[in-house]
């Protein structure tokens, strides 16, 4: 990554200030944006898509889009809302294409117990992540994959990424009532799917 031309400490700047600097030609500001949002977007897209490779491609595409379409951002909404909107739209397009040209891996033929999960080992941060947490996260991800993608999108934004309802409305462009109802329905279905975990607890 190229350092900022002006040598300003970009880490103290807000997201909106960074994008304005980048619009003026500060590539260091763009690097700072990438550093701030790459993991957040990867986590969100992974929970939404359920495949790490696809997730990586989508996040890469999102940053390329930000780079090429920097002039389109205006200070109407938050930068986080804008970049998440780009990522959601790209993820939806990817899902639609995947459904259109549906392919299946050989691993899908086997039972769920033998199924490989696309969770990067290094992403978990090392040896402290034990096998139980790995299994639990895989089980939750499976449950998320089973619910409708409209519900999944909003549940992830609200309960995993911890966005407010207003921000979700801005990102998705849906009415508030629709967002709430979809989040509640998604939660209900997810709770049903994760009954066993709650019983044990």
């Amino acid at each position, binding site marked *: 990554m190229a350092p900022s031309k002006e040598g300003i400490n970009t880490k103290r700047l807000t997201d909106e200030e960074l994008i304005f600097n980048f619009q003026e030609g500060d590539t260091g500001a763009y690097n700072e944006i990438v550093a701030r949002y790459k993991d957040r977007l990867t*986590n969100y897209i992974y929970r939404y898509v359920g495949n790490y490779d696809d997730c990586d491609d989508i996040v890469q595409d999102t940053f390329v889009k930000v780079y090429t379409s920097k002039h389109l951002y205006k200070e109407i909404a938050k930068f986080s809302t804008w970049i998440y909107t780009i990522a959601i739209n790209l993820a939806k397009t990817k899902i639609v294409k995947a459904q259109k040209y549906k392919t299946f891996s050989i691993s899908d033929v086997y039972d769920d117990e033998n199924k490989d999960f696309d969770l990067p080992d290094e*992403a978990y941060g090392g040896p402290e992540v034990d096998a139980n947490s790995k299994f639990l996260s895989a089980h939750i991800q499976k449950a998320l994959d089973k619910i409708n993608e409209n519900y999944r999108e909003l549940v992830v934004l609200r309960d*995993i990424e911890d966005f407010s309802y207003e921000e979700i409305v801005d990102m998705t462009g849906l009415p508030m009532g629709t967002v709430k109802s979809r989040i509640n329905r998604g939660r209900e279905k997810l709770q049903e799917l994760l009954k066993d975990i709650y019983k044990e607890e």
Partner: protein
Amino acid sequence: MLQEDEKYKALRDQLRTLPRVKAKHDFEDRLMRRIREAESPSVKLSHTVTQPVIKHQPAKKSWLESLFRPSFVPALGLTVVLLVAVVVYFGYYSKLNKSDTSNTQQFVSSTNQGDLIIYVKKDGEDISSNYPKEYSAVDPVDTRSGEYAPAPTETSTDYFAKPDPSRITNTPELKPDRVSEEQKIEMQRSVDMDKDKGVDVKGERKSDDVIMKKESKGLFKTETKSEMKKETSEPKKKVSDEKKNIFIDEESPNVNQEQKANDKVEDNLSNEDETGNRISRATKKDSTRNKSESEADDKETIQQK
């Protein structure tokens, strides 16, 4: 909103405790590579801007070359075919149709034998050459023979039209086929013979005369309805008279008187008929005598010669 969030608090906590998925280590390097790839066309363009741009100007083609392009060949062919078809239709076909309708005229004529002959007259053709010989031996152009009326040269096909009075030939009225003079003479001779013998031939002659009169009336006179009625009524009167004669009532003298008066009238009429008949017979005899005399005179002249 908060109530709903609290309702699913356990689930939310569970989701929050999920391990955060991080991007790959080489994420930024791959991203920069992709950005460069995306920027590369624009960079190339910026380099080319400094160089003088030589636009490729295609050589100007003549209008004939542009018209007879390979893509226009089917359309041009179709238009040419259509034009030829239009010219042929309006130039020849319509003329042919007109000649068919105008030049040829059909004529229908009927022969005396009841046959119907249709012959076609064309422009500049004499109809007499095409005239059927079986119609008449007389040339329709020839006017020397007045006895035979020339056949109509043209006959309209309109059979419902009124007949042309000029075409109707005045055929001479045929004389009724009556008893010939020789037969009359023979009949007269037989009557005379009967008279000589003393046979009463009055009734027979009367009936014959009446029949002859009736025939002559029917043949030569056009009977109106009133006359027909009279004729039909006359025999009825006679019948009534006969009935009156049959049913004579002796107690009614007036009726007898009337009957007697009627009888007298009838007798007078019969006398008049007899006199008329005698006169006619006399004239007939004279005529026969004259004929025989003339024949005798002829014979004498021949002998003298």
